[in-house]
């Protein structure tokens, strides 16, 4: 099996002498859509800060492509330039929307023309074309969240991390962001890690689901990554919500837990069963229901 994109081993974090995070082993594969779920105070954000190398663990290691960059300034900067995190309450710099989105490109010293091109593309992806010259301080919450997202995807990260990206947003903005997450994950092949407490969002997005409680992983599941077709896919009624709290386990490895001809969904495309489309034995699968 190939090296995971991100791996955490024996990871511990303490706060005021209390252990708030204790992760034995966690692997996030390249191209995965990974959802970290759990109640408030479960350690989700703490884990995300460690996985994004913005905070140091008290014990244990985090590996990026098999390398632990903590401790080396240059390795850390190089890894940080390959992943990016959008915080729960993203800070929007007190300047124009353009300069906000261009920030990550400017610190990488890209050419002006290229910066303009990438900013335009990112803003169009989040549905904010034409917002370039607006004062970023006058945006609505949903727009600000989308600007933060555009700023993150503008640098074309290998791993995009989102901390509660849709908390406190209205349904239309939630839909925009979830669609964008699917697009980035499937079309661009970006590994996406999302922290959420919304089980419906977990159902809507699917993927590698990590259940966190009191700082430890209590369950890991691989849910089908659905492409919503009907509004009811997006907004299941309360009955489905009740059902969702009782998630069925779909974890498994191809060839051992599942027969080799299982229909596999990868990046949203249902592959026809057959030897030519068969992933290698041991690869994580997302079988359809």
């Amino acid at each position, binding site marked *: 099996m190939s090296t995971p994109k991100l791996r955490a081993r024996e990871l511990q974090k303490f706060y005021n002498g209390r252990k708030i995070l204790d992760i034995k082993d966690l692997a996030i594969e390249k191209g995965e859509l990974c959802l970290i779920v759990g109640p408030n105070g479960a350690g989700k954000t703490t884990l995300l800060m460690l996985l994004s190398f*913005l905070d140091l663990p008290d014990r244990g290691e985090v590996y990026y492509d098999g390398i632990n960059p903590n401790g080396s300034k240059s390795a850390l900067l190089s890894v*940080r330039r390959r992943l*990016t*995190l959008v915080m729960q309450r993203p*800070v929007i710099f007190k300047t124009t929307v353009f300069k906000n989105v261009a*920030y990550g490109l400017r*610190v990488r010293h890209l050419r002006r023309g290229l910066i303009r091109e990438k900013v335009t593309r990112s803003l169009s992806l989040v549905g904010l074309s034409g917002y370039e010259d607006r004062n970023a301080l006058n945006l609505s919450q949903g727009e600000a969240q989308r600007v933060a997202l555009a700023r993150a995807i503008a*640098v074309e990260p290998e791993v995009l991390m989102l901390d509660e990206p849709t908390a406190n947003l209205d349904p239309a903005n939630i839909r925009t962001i979830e669609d964008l997450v699917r697009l980035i994950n499937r079309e661009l092949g970006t590994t996406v890690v999302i922290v959420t407490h919304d089980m419906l969002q977990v159902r809507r997005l699917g993927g590698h689901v990590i259940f966190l409680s009191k700082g430890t992983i209590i369950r890991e599941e691989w849910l089908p990554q659905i492409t919503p077709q009907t509004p009811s896919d997006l907004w299941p009624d309360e009955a489905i919500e009740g059902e969702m709290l009782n998630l069925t386990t779909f974890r498994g490895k191809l060839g051992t837990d599942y027969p080799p001809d299982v229909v596999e969904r990868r990046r949203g495309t249902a592959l026809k069963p057959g030897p030519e489309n068969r992933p290698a034995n041991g690869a994580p699968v997302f079988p359809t229901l």
Partner: protein
Amino acid sequence: MEYLWQGLIKALKLIVSLDREVFGIVLLSLRVSVTAIVLSALVGMPLGVLVGLRRFPGKRLFVTIVNTLMALPTVVVGLLVYTMLSHRGPLGVLGLLFTPAAMITAQSILVLPLVVGLTIVGITGVDPTVRKTAVSLGANELQAALAVVMEARYVLLAAIIAAFGRAIAEVGAAMMVGGNIKGSTRVITTAIALETGKGEFELAFALGIVLLSVAALINTALYKLQAGVR
């Protein structure tokens, strides 16, 4: 009351006629205070940014001392610089006493705590997630620090405005180390003090009006600049 009005009218005439003495004094005032602000900003802002961003033992004590020095009496600075620059003082050989350079030195020392203190206030007032956001977007340490400075830029400009106001309006230090020598170290405030003492109010009034106008003009310009960097 009559002499007050006459003084005011004569003062306006002095200004309108672009009186050479008045404008010589005004230009020297500006030269001294602007140079002092530039010097103290060059030293004080980086220092304030560093203190604001870093955690180190004794930081609280340092900030307390800086805050105390913000209220430094101008005559104390005058005394300090005078004793340093007088011919018996350690820097007496430089022969700077009673020159504009001495006044610049005194005013720089006077406003330095103000610049450092307000910079620290501005930097520590910036949401700590600004730095983390910059880092998560690929900024190195210096770039992240600059992002924080950019977020604090309104407060930093306010620091410059406050420092300039203090420098151009102070009289004690300028009088003591400059000596109020006509045509050489006479600035607006020392001239007003002298003319008032002599009972010649027209020049004092004229300079007072100019001082207020200059302050208003520069503050307006800085606020415009502030609006421009939004």
